[in-house]
């Protein structure tokens, strides 16, 4: 039944995008100098108030001097029945501090991107907007959707600056200007093999010496023989988990993806340890082809030996569901301190997990810009929006009210910094990674006491990717990337192990990629990287 309505909207959607880009083109004229010209214009209304506020730090600005203003916060989260109660409490706080109120506008994950882009394109009034590299942040910046933040941050965001790892503020920049404030959490993630602890103990698996998928093979054989209910290695090809692709480069040398990744498949790579020349290699490079062939060959042999589930090419069941059923003993996963416990909590606490990190954590632009707030161009008072954001980054009461709700109604305090959520309380939005400063969140059951100190340590120790801060602008090679996406999508299942002759198919894919124009994209990428390096003197 829904198909009918859905279909009808496809041409309409196409029209929207055409129309939206036209609108943007019209707005583009003023878009470029937006950063320079619009902040004074948009803050004209409260200028008398902010003049006095700018003299003193924002915290000490008397609320009565500021005109009342409603700051709307658009964020990535499921609407909750008690949103209004929390909003009222937040208003009490902000009213007293900066004479502002807030309007919470949670938007559920699946709608978020489309809906916020529609709101931006139609110029709807918004103040704080959640954005991220995976929500087309850089595209929206170049369309002029967000206000430039360097001055605002210096004026009203001192608390943010003090607390945030400086690496964070290098990422969300375009032409050197800051356009978003990252949420303070773990700045990057490594990749790890995560095991079920009871199986590791039972078979005495030396997880610290298993660094590649090939090392895993003898243990897959043992688990297959000894644990009939367990899938030795699970691949869900139907939903974008293409098995071999996930850790291929991380476990085989120093190449790391850079630039466009059509259909989430890395096409261009860079050796992050040879920082002297920064030469981009594409998947057509013999060395990379070799890595790819080894990987697809390995997965094919796993599949033939029955280590991979038979429906690997099409399965859409999530790993989480299978974990809850006890069918998974190892998986390739992202890792940060506390990841094992998070995994345990996300799967009904049925099993304990242990991980061995196989990849050194590296901070890339995409990861550091993975969760941020920007201030919309349509905001009528960006100063106030920044003040609110500053409180969300510095004040434990506000941020915990936002992510955990009201004390004794939505959670019970069981320690100084530790809470127990009340079941079915009407407020549990799961937004701790979305808003403000996660390091100020109260700890939940299962999280270790030193979680946040280990995150800080992790952030400080994380290695920076040489191209940190670089963003590829694909405007000149859009057609080529579209064509490459089609090719990659067609051949995606070769990494699941479920198709025959993957090496031959890989050659076939690469030939098609070549005619799709991968070399042109590579040249463009190299050109932009060289320009970026010259500009930043690196």
């Amino acid at each position, binding site marked *: 039944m*829904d198909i009918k309505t859905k279909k009808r909207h496809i041409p309409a959607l196409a*029209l929207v995008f055409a129309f939206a880009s036209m609108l943007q083109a019209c707005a583009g004229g003023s878009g470029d100098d937006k950063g320079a010209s619009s902040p004074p214009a948009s803050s004209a209304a409260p200028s008398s108030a902010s003049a006095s506020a700018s003299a003193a730090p924002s915290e000490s600005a008397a609320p009565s001097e500021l005109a009342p203003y409603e700051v709307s916060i658009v964020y990535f989260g499921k609407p909750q029945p008690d949103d209004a109660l929390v909003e009222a409490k937040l208003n009490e706080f902000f009213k007293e501090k900066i004479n502002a109120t807030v309007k919470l506008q949670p938007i559920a994950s*699946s*709608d978020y991107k489309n809906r916020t882009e*529609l709101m931006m394109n139609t110029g709807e009034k918004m103040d704080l907007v959640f954005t991220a590299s995976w929500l087309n942040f850089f595209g929206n910046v170049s369309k002029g959707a967000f206000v430039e933040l360097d001055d605002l941050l210096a004026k009203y965001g001192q608390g943010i600056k003090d607390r945030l790892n400086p690496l964070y503020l290098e990422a969300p920049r375009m032409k050197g200007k800051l356009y978003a404030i990252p949420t303070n959490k773990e700045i990057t993630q490594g990749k790890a093999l995560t095991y079920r602890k009871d199986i590791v103990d039972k078979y005495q698996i030396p997880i610290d010496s298993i660094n590649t998928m090939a090392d895993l093979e003898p243990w897959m054989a043992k688990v297959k023989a000894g644990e009939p209910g367990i899938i030795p290695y699970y691949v869900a090809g139907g939903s974008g988990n293409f098995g071999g692709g996930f850790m291929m480069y991380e476990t085989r040398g120093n190449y790391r993806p850079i630039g466009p990744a059509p259909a989430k498949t890395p096409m261009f790579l860079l050796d992050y340890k040879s920082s002297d020349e920064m030469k981009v290699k594409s998947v057509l490079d013999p060395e990379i082809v070799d890595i790819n062939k080894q990987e697809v060959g390995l997965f094919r042999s796993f599949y033939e030996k029955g280590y991979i589930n038979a429906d690997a090419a099409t399965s859409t069941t999530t790993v989480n569901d299978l974990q809850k059923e006890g069918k998974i003993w190892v998986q390739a996963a992202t890792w940060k301190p506390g990841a094992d416990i998070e995994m345990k909590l996300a799967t009904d606490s049925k099993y304990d997990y242990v991980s061995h990190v196989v990849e050194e954590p590296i901070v890339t632009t995409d990861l550091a810009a993975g969760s941020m707030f920007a201030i919309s161009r349509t905001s009528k008072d960006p100063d106030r929006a920044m003040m609110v954001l500053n409180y969300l980054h510095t004040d434990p009461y506000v941020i915990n009210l936002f992510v955990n709700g009201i004390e004794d109604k939505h959670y019970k305090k069981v320690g100084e910094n530790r809470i127990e959520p009340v079941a079915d309380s009407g407020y549990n939005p799961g937004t701790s990674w979305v808003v403000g400063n996660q390091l100020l969140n109260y700890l939940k059951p299962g999280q270790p006491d030193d979680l946040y100190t280990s995150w800080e340590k992790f952030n400080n120790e994380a290695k920076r990717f040489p191209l940190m801060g670089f963003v590829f602008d694909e405007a000149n090679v859009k057609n080529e990337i579209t064509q490459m996406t089609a090719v990659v999508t067609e051949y995606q299942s070769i990494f699941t192990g479920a198709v025959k002759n993957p090496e031959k198919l890989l050659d076939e894919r690469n030939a098609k990629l070549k005619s799709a124009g991968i070399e042109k994209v590579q040249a463009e990428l190299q050109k932009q990287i060289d320009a970026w390096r010259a500009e930043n003197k690196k």
Partner: protein
Amino acid sequence: MLKTASRRENTISPLTNYVLNGGFIVLALACVLPVVLVIIVSFTHNDSLLSRGYSFFPVKWSLIAYESLFKDYGTILRAYGVSVGITAAGTVLSVLLMALYAYPISRQDYPLRPFFTFFLFFTMLFSGGIVSKYIVFTQGLGLLDNYLSLLLPLLIVPFNVIIMRTFFQTTIHPALIESARIDGAGELRIFVRIVLPLSLPVMATMALFSTILFWNDWFNALLFIRAEDKYPVQFLMIRVLNDIQYLRENVQLAAQNPEMMRDLPNESLQMAMAVVGMGPILIVYPFFQKYFVKGLTIGAVKG
């Protein structure tokens, strides 16, 4: 001799009879079985779903899906209320408005007929797109979070108006209208007393179309409704399904933020939602059915 005598002129041979019946039984099963399967899966325990997949004869039954669905019954009842209200109001208004548009352009003696027909037809070919629609509704009419924003966009369906116009043109002979006028009836009386009663089949068909359209519509809610207590039931459900789909497609994102994976409904819960969502439409169908066939044949030449 006896054999042929026992068979009347128009009957088909038993073999053809079986083949035809068999064919239609298969066809009917192909329509009904998926629905039955959805209902069964919604009562299946998740364990047997994961180990054996969908099955008509699950090993383990369970009511958990419905229990967790109705744990939050307030939300669902309210969403149901919104959907029923919008559908009822929408259907009545929509049929009335479409009839009022279709009738004048069905009349040969209406001078502006070509213009209004083209006006209608034009919107079938070109639409303003979502951006302009969004601006008109939110900034022009100020209907954000207003039930009217669910009602207005679907009131007139151009294609249905054209079906209606064709029906009026073919079933209502101009002489009928003429004679009514001679008897002293005004335009409104002609429409209400003569045209409408004669057009019951097409009205019923359009009412059915509109009911389905309004009941299934979630897209306008996606655009215009922010407050969760104003969600129609279909949007409530499609959002949950979309969220699951979204996480499946963004495995990496979900892995980085496991909080997103929490509270995700499993497959039997998704099916339970589908069952809850289709309920009322199943009840509505039989009421319209007797008009349906006749309504659909309009436009065909009749002897």
